[in-house]
């Protein structure tokens, strides 16, 4: 994957609380065995009607939001199922970051592991950003991950928090598995005294 440092990009609004991963990618599209191509199915049942035609009122079908790289939503984005297909689909569609008031736990973790940056900002900031981008799709936000700030038109620059290890992984494109495997000897030493009940 690519390193994540700064991003200046337009936003797409998804103005609903508690968007669950079943809406982000419905279960019937989880029968594949690969990670690619899921962008086509992103928000499938909201994007298309029962006969498969795009719903014109849905933001991601509107030309002014084409090319947006930041998804913006209010509270508790990504709740429900742990499917990593949700961040895969969001990433595959072209998004690189998400701004919300809050994120569901597993979804946030899964996103960070796919170089998709979740940024939590205070409620009034997110709500104003949502209404501003609904009114004017050309607005761009600027994310500076090393500095941990987002600049938002009409509002100013805001700091955001991120786990220092996760930040390092994104900025340097580090790999979790490689990191943990560097402690394999420590893990093996732990195993000599730890009862884990092997399946016999």
């Amino acid at each position, binding site marked *: 994957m690519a390193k994540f440092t700064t991003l200046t990009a337009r936003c797409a609004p998804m103005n*609903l*609380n*508690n968007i*669950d991963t*079943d*809406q982000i990618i*419905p*279960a*019937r599209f*989880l*029968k*594949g*065995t*690969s*990670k690619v191509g899921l962008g086509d199915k992103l928000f499938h*049942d909201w994007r298309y009607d*029962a006969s498969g035609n795009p719903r014109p009122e849905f933001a991601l079908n509107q030309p002014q939001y084409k090319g947006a790289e930041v998804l913006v939503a*209010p*509270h*508790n984005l990504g*709740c*429900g*199922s*742990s*499917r*990593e297909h949700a*961040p895969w689909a969001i990433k595959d569609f072209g998004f690189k970051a998400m701004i919300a008031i*809050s994120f*569901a*736990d*597993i979804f946030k*973790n*899964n996103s960070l*592991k*796919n170089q998709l940056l979740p940024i939590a900002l205070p409620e009034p900031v997110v709500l104003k950003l949502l209404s501003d981008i609904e009114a004017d799709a050309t607005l761009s936000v600027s994310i500076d991950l090393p500095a941990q700030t987002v600049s938002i038109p009409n509002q100013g620059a805001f700091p955001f928090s991120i*786990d*220092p*290890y996760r930040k390092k992984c994104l900025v340097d494109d580090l790999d*979790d*598995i490689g*990191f*943990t*495997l560097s*402690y*394999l000897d*420590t*893990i093996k030493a*732990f*195993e000599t005294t*730890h009862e*884990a*009940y*092997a*399946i*016999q």
Partner: protein
Amino acid sequence: MTNALADTPKTLYQKIWDSHVVLQKPDIPAILYIDRHLIHEVTSPQAFQGLRDRKLPMHRPDLVFGVVDHSIPTYDRSRPVEDPEAARQISQFEKNCEEFGVRYFGAHSDKQGIIHVIGPEQGLTLPGMTIVCGDSHTSTHGAFGALAFGIGTSEIEHVFATQCLLQQPSKTMEIRVEGKLSEHITAKDIILAIIGKIGIGGGTGYVLEYTGSAIRSLSMEGRMTLCNMSIEAGARAGMVAPDEVTFEYLKGKPFAPKDKAFDEAVAQWRQLTTDVGAKYDTVIELKAEDIEPMVTYGTNPGMAIGISKPLPTPDQMPTEDEKTELADALDYMKVEAAKPMAGTSVDVVFIGSCTNSRIEDLRDAAQIAKSRKVATSVRALVVPGSYNVKRQAEAEGLDKIFTDAGFEWREPGCSMCIAMNGDQIESGQLCASTSNRNFKGRQGPGGRTVLMSPAMAAAAAVTGKLVDVRKLS
């Protein structure tokens, strides 16, 4: 470590966390050891492929266990899987397990079932363990006093390669339910009442520990139902400290320790309680007597209410957002504000899922179905959680009660909980369901889901509408 530290009272969660930390350094998450890794066909294929791409071995295949459950059809297993994508996913899963030496129950195993039913009934789930699975309802296993939580596919690959996860500790929340539950009130009603109270984001960042006399009185099946839905409150995990009920359940289970090893394990497991004086970050209390049969009325599990209570109205909501959200949910569900859910017509009844498909759940439902008939307008199906549950139910004659009443009696799997395997409701239909999620379209595009206990679902089946099971004549 000083004595003072060693004597610091700890919560159950802290005890399990501490005994699994392999390494803790400043500025990096802890490396946490995983005792049991459960896998299924939907979230694991990309992780197996990742391991192959990196040319890495699986570190501890002897701690991993797999089962097919999500995309498997619930019709006669001797028939081939009709959906080519599901067939490919299932056979790929079996191949992956074979290649890496992982024990599994495949499509034709007579022990197959839903992963969260299989783990406990096979004794793969034990107190004090860390347990993960690429599935959010892994929280189920916390019923045994284990720390069990759902992970994504990247983390599955991480556990395959290292048998560890990188983790930050969670906050702890005690949910204390004291008192005596009235007749027909089950763990499902308790958990729906809890989520209705704290909301679907109320548990975010927390591990929940359920305590109190009402929780202690629950069977293992009930505790599993309770812990299962912890994730619906946004919590990482839910747990109940193990006690005699737990040890009794585990005795003689195929993969549980045997004889002397079992007694030694029980002695260890008895230490797994929250110490007197240990502090939780948050405490929530509920009175068992206040809980009535619960149903959901909206499009997430937090929109839950007593069957006879009037639904909230959008203007009562404090913020504009919540007004819109509630109005949208009521509109989608085609239910009316200020009226109770009782009396709403149902089209489909689904008794199953990792929340409520165990033997006790089927007994509860059968007790209501007995000598009654499914309403003519209703399609009702019972999907046992595993072949063991199915055989046990058949030995008790429950299958006969269900089929005589007009229920379909199916083969085990996730089925209509997630509608991946062909079992689904049609657009506009309303399903009284014992599963755990009432998100829009969860049981089929355009479908409407009302969550409830098995007895309530059976009552809906025989009357054709939502009723208070206690009022059934």
